[in-house]
């Protein structure tokens, strides 16, 4: 079931909320059971067989975590083996459903083998659920989680607002909240939840989806081998960047809002990533909980193990001015690229996703290297930050936009074709209709290599206006977390000590102005529900 569907907004959600509040008024345990059951229905709605696939996996993980709980102190070796077995089980589960065909196809391509590619049912949200289950096992083994029942665990895994596309949550940040829930109607939470949900719905349907219609033909043409001029290639790249930005931002707001209806605060997952001043900053703002997961459960353990090994051999380690080039490569570059490789393939079983991940890994390495080198050539950090912040922003923005082409392009070759288009390899052109209106300016453009083409002037105009408006919103306006900061829209989010004028001007309060404004936003979203479209991140 899609969050942005009539059946969800006018059927499922009101029914679940009514049941939750009514049961909660009598017995909170019943209300939580109702919530778990409703989450199962939500999960099964699209394809009931999903439940049959995911339920055994949940039970096995619960059993493994029970073993870990009992052995982590008494028999650490057994606990370690159990943990490794659990991680392997979850990765195999994910690998079988998501990557089997990709690997078999790759082997067929590379070695001429003839593995049969079978049509597998990909359980909904499997990538997100798998990461949460692995994190849970690791936390239990490390003693960070204790006292849990099958009901707690099932609710943690299945809680429908974050079930399909995150945020990727930790048991230790969710369960204390569930245990403290009154399970009764709370107008404070509902007011914040309604605001978050309809902010997200409007972002998705009014800002993200219309862009899809404009850029899809450009990617289709690139996939068919038709070169795109500079104008079209940049529209394709910028358009998709903004589409996925508002799609994911919208989904995240809706997930936060839905959880808040039940009194739950999910962790922040999206914080104006296009405002980032560096690629490191970008990953602290984009899909925050994925970065947190990969850092905590992959990058850090890998770096720690490698550091210990280097120290044992008496070699230099990474850190500070004395970092050597070998230390940088083995303790930062290699783990970073490997982590981002995993991030890439986690997003999708395809070469383009892998390349996207590796590209970001390389960019992160360059960023880290510059952080090491910069103090030597530009010692004054304050002056550097003041003068170079715009440069950092532009470099980051352009890098992200180039990377997003890989994320959207159906094949690596079409992505390369679009990159070439963006750099002017196929020339620059404007629609003939635009040229006709430019007069002398058109002739001048012709002299510098911009040529008229029989492409649609109205489509170019619409794309340009949409991109301009979306960029202005993404870069100049405060985000949802800032607007609602005094009401803790996401776990741990507090108002900044110094709030810019735009944040103060748009700060949300439960007053009449926002009530009427939100009604307008909500209605605009509801009126746009007719065109059903999936969230881009649901496919991962």
């Amino acid at each position: 079931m899609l969050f942005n569907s009539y059946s969800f907004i006018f059927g499922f959600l009101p029914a679940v909320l009514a049941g939750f509040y009514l049961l909660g008024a009598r017995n909170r345990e019943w209300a939580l059971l109702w919530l778990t059951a409703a989450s199962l229905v939500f999960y099964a709605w699209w394809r009931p067989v999903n439940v049959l696939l995911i339920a055994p996996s949940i039970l096995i993980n619960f059993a493994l975590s029970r073993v870990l709980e009992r052995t982590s102190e008494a028999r650490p070796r057994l606990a370690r083996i159990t943990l490794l077995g659990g991680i392997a089980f979850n990765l195999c589960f994910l690998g079988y459903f998501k990557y089997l065909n990709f690997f078999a196809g790759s082997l067929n391509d590379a070695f001429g083998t003839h593995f049969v590619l079978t049509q597998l049912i990909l359980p909904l949200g499997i990538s997100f659920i798998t990461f949460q289950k692995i994190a849970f096992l690791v936390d239990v083994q490390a003693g960070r989680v204790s006292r849990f029942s099958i009901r707690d665990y099932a609710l943690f895994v299945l809680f429908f607002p974050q079930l399909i596309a995150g945020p990727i949550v930790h048991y230790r940040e969710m369960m204390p909240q569930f245990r403290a829930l009154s399970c009764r109607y709370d107008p404070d939470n509902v007011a914040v939840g309604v605001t978050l949900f309809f902010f997200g719905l409007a972002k998705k349907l009014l800002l993200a989806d219309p862009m899809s219609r404009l850029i899809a033909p450009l990617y289709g043409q690139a996939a068919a081998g038709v070169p795109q001029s500079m104008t079209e290639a940049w529209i394709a790249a910028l358009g998709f960047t903004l589409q996925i930005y508002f799609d994911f931002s919208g989904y995240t707001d809706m997930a936060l809002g839905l959880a808040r209806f039940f009194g739950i605060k999910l962790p922040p997952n999206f914080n104006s990533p296009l405002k980032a001043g560096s690629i490191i900053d970008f990953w602290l703002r984009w899909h925050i909980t994925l970065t947190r997961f990969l850092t905590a459960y992959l990058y850090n353990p890998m770096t720690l193990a490698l550091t210990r090994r280097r120290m044992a051999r008496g070699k230099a380690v990474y850190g500070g001015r004395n970092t050597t080039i070998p230390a940088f490569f083995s303790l930062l570059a290699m783990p970073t690229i490997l982590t981002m490789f995993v991030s890439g393939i986690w997003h999708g079983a395809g070469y383009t996703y892998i390349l996207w991940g590796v590209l970001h890994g390389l960019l992160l390495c360059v960023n880290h290297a510059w952080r090491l080198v910069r103090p030597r050539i530009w010692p004054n950090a304050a002056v550097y930050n003041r003068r170079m912040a715009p440069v950092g922003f532009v470099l980051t923005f352009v890098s992200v936009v180039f990377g997003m082409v890989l994320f959207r392009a159906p094949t690596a070759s079409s992505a390369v074709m679009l990159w070439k288009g963006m750099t002017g390899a196929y020339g620059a052109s404007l629609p003939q209709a635009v040229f006709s209106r430019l007069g002398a300016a058109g002739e001048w453009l012709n002299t510098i290599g911009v040529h008229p083409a029989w492409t649609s002037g109205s489509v170019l105009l619409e794309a340009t206006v949409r991109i301009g408006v979306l960029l202005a919103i993404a870069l100049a306006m405060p985000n949802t977390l800032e607007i609602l900061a005094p009401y803790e829209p996401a776990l741990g989010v507090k108002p900044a000590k110094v709030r810019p004028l735009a944040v103060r001007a748009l700060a949300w309060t439960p007053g009449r102005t926002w009530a009427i404004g939100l009604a307008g936003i909500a209605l605009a979203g509801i009126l746009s529900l007719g065109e059903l479209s999936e969230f881009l991140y649901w496919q991962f």
Partner: protein
Amino acid sequence: MSGPRSFLRTWILSLMAFAVLVVSVNLLADPYDVFGTPRIAGFNARKPTARDHAMLTKTYQVARAHPATVVIGSSPVYLGIDAFSPAWPAAMRPVYNYGIPGGYATLASLETLREAIFAGGVKDAVVFLDFQNFLVPGGDSAAVTEESRRFRFAPDGSPNPYRPRQMAEDMFLALGTMSALTDSLITVARQEKPVSLDMARDGSATEADFINAANADGMHDMFAQKDMFEAERANRSKRAIAGWTGPLPGLDIVSRMIRVAHAHHVKLTLVIAPHHFDSLELYWRDGLWPRIEQLKTELAALAATPDHDVILWDFMDYGTFTTEDVPLVGDRRTETHWFWEPTHFKKQVGSIMIQRMFDGDGPAFGAALTQANVAARNADVRTERQAVVCGPDRKRPLTALDKPPGDGCASNGVVLRQNGPT
């Protein structure tokens, strides 16, 4: 007022008030003419956004129009035939323009013909046929098009079982969606615009898009751009039909049109639509001319079905109207008289065709085709072409014919023949 309870109360009340307002605006503006809301000058008389929902609009319009004559086809009919033209004989009025823009195929014409005929009251049906639709094997194989779900009648004439649900969806689309609201606001805002898109109650449309484009870009650019698209389309058609033997694809649909018209005592006029010289030469260049002649011959045979009231007209020739000159590049002032671009004729041409077909009068243009005269007509059109292309003026289309088989003229001006299906 403050506090979450009053916030939520105000929010819900505002949401409901806004929703009622939106539904009311959409009902009054009625941008797609679904409800037949009275048209008020300056408010909703013109329907500038109806074109984008033409099948929706026209299905509801035709049910209210009770026409004696329906004209069926794609965008050339939609734009080029005026249902209110004085050229229509009194006995054929009222006329409804059931032309659907957007490249609809012959099957859609059959469906709209059925829908109009099953409703009763239709005595004449005029169906414009697009030559290129007969070059796509399998292109018309769909049993039921998505749009036909809203028709009142199923293909066998019984009530359409899909219609109630589709009507509910249509009402919702026209009342409770953002696109309807946007189109309602556009409808109201564009009433005073000097040149605006519109779809009248009789299905006729204004040529505002073409007028605006001609004013902005000039006729030369309009022809040049359409030439490019038509060249690609003709090339695709050429590949699709290559090696095809037997009757052209889609002719069986024309047979079904003839049968349904006969069964309901409707006089059927089939029309091979006119194309501008540029298009005709593209077909020549791509070796499609024998297919055009094949189509005319096979349609003439179908039209000759005994006891069936069917007339076939052919306007696909090299006459005065189709061979007018295109303004030179850079000339944005000179207007063409008869064609907007190679495939869309102007309303004046539409009226002349009506006059020719139903009044037996008017300037020389087109010919009624029969089995007896089709061979001669084909030969005549080749002769016309020879005179235009190989004569002293050696007229050339906008897109230079520099590819084989060239213009078909020998260096001495003698026309070379294109023989047989390619």
